């Protein structure tokens, strides 16, 4: 068997920047002042910020050291469920760094930004092809803003019909941001429970759908990694009452080239370019959550929209029913370049991406279900959800197990989510992991499960090999230290 990636080694300490600082050190030389000093308004004056004095090498070593303590998808498997931490091909970075793109100022006149506009225009067309929907705005900066755009468009749609509706149906297996987006738009989120199969039943949706229902927000595949098989019927029920169907496309990695959102009855769907289309994310990095709609809703999309006239690309604000502007300029352009690069690189193989992502998740599910409790033992999509029920007898929790997994050199999966499974362990291997790496991960988890029986204390103290051992999360939350 191959060795597990996790091992011991020399790990360096690194003090806080404030502890490294020495008065008078400086990392740059400022240019000579060439204007006369001017008095500062008293209202603007005050104590200077508490910045440490450091030389360049101090700063470089500090951040390089911190990066060595870090874990990244470039270093190993990162099976964080619902986050699609797939490998991000380096060609995306290369293309995003082309000087014409990287150096383009967002205020360039459109005549000399035709390449950038064309890229965005074409990316919109690609996304209509991938979802089956008709029109796209690339503006939303992340999934949650795509959701908000969707809710605002649902509101605009009903308003255009002279009606005012109050409720949005949200299943208990939706992403957590869904009810928040609905509420932020002034709707009352109405929870509907999934059935014993882990999916929505048409009856449950029918029971809560009425003339006050503005729409339903459905994550498909849902957060249990299961495909909502009744989606067409559910869409029909909501449409019959005059509501719209919003699909959270965060889990698109399971179904690219396989399902057609429009044929399923979806009116609006957002995509997460930073998940499905292989752009780096996490740690608050930039996202991009384009929102795709059917023809009848296109007039409500955010402005400006990118249009093509006589072979030239331009921004257009001529959409009086638009919900307005969502983002400065036109969204996170760098992310769009990378997604465009990925889509062109993969071409029709995008379908293969989804097939392999689903195959990998099912492989992990089958291999681990003997040691981890599997609440819904049926074919899954791109992720599978276990629980810690088998380990309860040893008083070992999900948290203990995944902390120990770190000692073996793997990033923990998503834990305690979705909420419908107590002690959830949500694993999304993605398509980019080889069978050898999946086997190593599976063996590591099996080893942890064995230790849970034979040496539970080892798990409670884990991680033992990481730079930072088990954190006192309670103290951190109760008495946070927010200064340097």
């Amino acid at each position: 068997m191959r060795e597990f990636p996790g091992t011991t080694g020399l790990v360096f300490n690194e003090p806080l920047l404030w502890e490294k600082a020495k008065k008078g050190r400086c990392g740059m030389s400022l240019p000579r002042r060439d204007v006369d000093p001017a008095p500062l308004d008293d209202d603007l004056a005050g104590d200077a910020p508490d910045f440490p004095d450091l030389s360049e090498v101090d700063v470089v070593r500090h951040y390089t050291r911190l990066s060595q303590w870090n874990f990244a998808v470039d270093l190993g498997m990162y099976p964080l469920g619902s986050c699609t931490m797939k490998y991000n091909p380096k060609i995306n970075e290369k293309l995003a760094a082309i000087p014409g793109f990287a150096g383009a100022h967002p205020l360039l006149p459109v005549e000399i930004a035709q390449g950038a506009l064309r890229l965005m225009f074409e990316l919109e067309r690609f996304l209509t092809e991938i979802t089956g929907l008709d029109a796209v705005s690339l503006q939303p900066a992340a999934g949650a803003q795509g959701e908000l755009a969707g809710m605002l468009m649902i509101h605009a749609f009903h308003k255009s019909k002279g009606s005012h509706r109050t409720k949005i149906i949200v299943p208990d297996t939706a992403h957590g941001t869904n009810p928040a987006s609905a509420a932020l738009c002034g709707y009352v989120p109405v929870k509907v429970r999934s059935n014993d199969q882990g999916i929505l039943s048409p009856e449950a949706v029918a029971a809560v759908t009425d003339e006050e229902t503005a729409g339903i927000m459905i994550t498909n595949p849902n957060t249990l990694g299961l495909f909502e098989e009744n989606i067409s019927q559910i869409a029909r029920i909501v449409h019959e009452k005059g509501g719209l169907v919003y699909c959270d496309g965060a889990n698109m990695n399971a179904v690219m080239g396989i399902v057609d959102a429009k044929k399923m009855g979806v009116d609006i769907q957002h995509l997460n370019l930073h998940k499905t289309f292989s752009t780096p994310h996490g740690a608050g990095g930039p996202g991009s959550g384009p929102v795709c709609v059917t023809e009848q809703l296109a007039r409500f999309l955010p402005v400006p929209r990118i249009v093509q006239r006589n072979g030239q690309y331009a921004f257009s604000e001529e959409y009086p029913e638009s919900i307005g502007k969502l983002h400065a300029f036109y969204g996170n352009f760098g992310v769009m370049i990378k997604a465009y690069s990925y889509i062109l690189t993969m071409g029709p193989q995008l379908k293969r991406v989804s097939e392999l992502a689903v195959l990998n998740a099912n492989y992990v599910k089958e291999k681990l279900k003997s040691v981890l409790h599997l609440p819904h033992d049926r074919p899954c999509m791109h992720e599978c959800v276990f629980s810690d029920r088998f380990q309860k007898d040893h008083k070992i929790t999900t948290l203990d197990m995944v902390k120990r997994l770190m000692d073996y050199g793997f990033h923990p999966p998503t834990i305690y989510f979705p909420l419908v499974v107590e002690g959830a362990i949500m694993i999304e291997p993605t398509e980019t992991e080889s069978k050898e790496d999946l086997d190593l991960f599976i063996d590591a988890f099996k080893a942890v499960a064995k230790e849970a029986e034979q040496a539970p204390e080892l798990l409670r103290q884990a991680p033992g090999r990481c730079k930072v051992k088990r954190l006192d999360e309670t103290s951190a939350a109760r008495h946070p230290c927010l200064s340097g």
Partner: protein
Amino acid sequence: MKELGELNLPDDLRYAEDHEWVRLAGDKVVVGVSDYAQDRLGDITYVEIPQVGDAFKKGESCGTLESVKAVADLFIPLSGEILAVNDALAESPGLVNEDPYGEGWILEVKPLNAAELDELMDSDAYLLMLERLE
């Protein structure tokens, strides 16, 4: 986590399905969360409580309990008006873990309908419910 047999479920309290407890004190009631609730939530780091004078209907969410593991709604077990809240929880949310039936009380409520008290479970019925739940 505690076994069900290890839980402290005092006999003189009534319990709601959402794991709140109620203690009758004259014409008002004191509300907190059960030993089971605090144990399963884990270390509580923040308690969001309603304002004195707010009124809620039975089963409505009137606050949240945030732990290292999860954020849980606090559902009011009886319809009524908030008479007092435990201000000590702002500084010391851990009181809910350490002493859920004493120092960790959360609300005092003036019940709107005393008959709702009879709809709540006694400790035996609550334990039975927990056994079914597990």
